[in-house]
């Protein structure tokens, strides 16, 4: 059987998610045995090919050139995976309330305005691997499931669920503005486990209840950050019915 052809691409990003993939270390070698990597600038792979089975795209779209490149990748690929918060949300969950389009800037290389867009603003994305950075094991699971023809689903729970299993005490109880209750899990609650609040890098959980978190912050005397009010407008109490 012919091995599936895989391409790994970068839009604008810090490339930390690709580094996370490389951090899978010897599993990478095993992964590369089951597929044919035909395109990956970072690793110096550039073979000739027409069609891709899987395109893994990291980073946000920040220029016309990148937009064109992304559309081209989409056309060539059966499955397109958005890798990391920049690709999934344009870095929105990292930068929170920052309004990119409100900054008047002079940009070089003929760019007219600033933007940082998620891939799905321009093309259909089949699967999302969330996080800044992504979790290596999460990526490995996606990779395996795609190879087997399964559907990959991101973690169905929020960060709190993983946090309590680590025997952690709740940071909210200490008055720390942790976003764990509304943030998609799958990271192993790495930040709260290190005593650091969750900054929401994996985006909103499937059933995020922003209203309730605002109430919790208010009750505990934690200042409600501006972006939570923004999010409240968008999702409020989360899914209903």
């Amino acid at each position: 059987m012919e091995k599936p052809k895989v391409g790994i691409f970068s839009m604008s990003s810090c490339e930390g998610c690709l580094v996370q993939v490389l951090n899978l270390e010897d599993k990478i070698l095993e992964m590369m045995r089951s597929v044919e990597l035909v395109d990956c600038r970072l690793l110096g792979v550039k073979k000739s090919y027409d069609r891709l089975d899987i395109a893994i795209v990291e980073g946000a779209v920040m220029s016309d050139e990148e937009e064109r490149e992304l559309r081209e990748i989409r056309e060539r690929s059966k499955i397109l995976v958005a890798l990391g918060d920049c690709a999934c949300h344009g870095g929105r969950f990292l930068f929170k309330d920052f309004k990119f389009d409100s900054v008047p800037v002079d940009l070089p290389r003929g760019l007219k305005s600033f933007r940082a867009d998620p891939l799905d603003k321009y093309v259909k994305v089949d699967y999302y691997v969330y996080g800044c950075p992504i979790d290596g094991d999460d990526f490995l699971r996606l990779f395996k499931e795609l190879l087997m023809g399964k559907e990959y689903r991101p973690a169905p729970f929020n960060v709190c669920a993983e946090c309590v299993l680590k025997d952690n005490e709740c940071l909210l109880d200490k008055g720390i503005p942790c976003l764990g209750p509304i943030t998609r899990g799958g990271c192993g609650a790495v930040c709260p486990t290190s005593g650091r609040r969750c900054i929401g890098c994996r985006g909103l959980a499937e059933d995020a209840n922003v209203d309730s978190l605002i109430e919790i912050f208010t009750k505990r005397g934690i200042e409600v950050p501006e972006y939570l009010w923004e999010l409240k407008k968008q999702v409020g109490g989360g899914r209903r019915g």
Partner: protein
Amino acid sequence: MERFVVITKEDFTVLLERLLGAYQVIAPVEREGRIFLSYVSDPAEVNMEYKGTTLLPPKRFFFPEVEVLFTYRVTGGRVELYDKLEEVRGAKRALLGVRPCDIKSLEILDKVLIGEYKDPYYAARRDGTLIVGLTCNEPDEYCFCAFTGSGPQASGGFDLLMTDLGDRYLVEIGSDKGERVVNLNLDLFKPASKDEVNEREEMLKRVEAEIRRQELPDLTKVYEAFAKNFDAELWLEYGRRCLACGKCNYVCPTCRCFDVYDEPSLDGSSGKRVRVWDSCHFLSFTRVAGGKVFRSERPSRVKQRIYHKYCYGVDEIGEIECVGCGRCIKVCPAGIDIREAAKRVVEL
């Protein structure tokens, strides 16, 4: 043999050392101000003076949050399965310092998981584990076991049950297994005096009185009130507050819902079937193939847990499945209080 013996705290350390030689010992330990149950290798790590409950209940030592059920290998057109049950069997363990509420929770899990069908992984771990309980001298603000009929006294389900009497422990023998431990260590135990037994009774009464300072209904008898208030307004309110994080399920000593999935190797030729704790608060919990979610509304998920404790438990095993440990109250970021909910339902 008397039902009650005593052991000094000094001798208890000796007993611990001997137990460590014969068993894998699980006991409360304190690290960075947190009390949790853990495997220990040194008597010095054990903390028997803690207040209230451990953050996570003992269920994870019988029903771990991640468990491989079996592994498989696919070669050509053949499949071979390798049962993981054998690895669970035979471990000799001692679980020390668990509270009466948690002992009760194990009895409840026994009824659920060892019935018409038997969960063999759970059963094997239960078989191999000696239970040494520890009554509370000081409940914490979340405890309400007196209202759920599961404390502060334990009516059974333990091999040994200790009560802290200051410089010594009064030990109640609850089973043949417990008696054997005492017999093997007769040099450390001496029979308890009547005064010592009374002292324990006084202590437990005092603890009970303290817990009963809260005004709660008898929670073993709220079935009817719950049944007729399924559509009450208060569930919508709880639903609005609930974050669907599932912490309450994870810390509940009787919650045991799980998910099962296959984890294949990279080349697909082998893999394992894994079960992990699941939560009825997750939107995905009732999602069937094709995408339909049966309990998509958050109030219906809040109700699922609380009703399971006070109503469905009675349908299922003939008694409520809440042991009044208060953990779910302690961990809920939104401050949802199952005591308060029950009280409100009864007063509707």
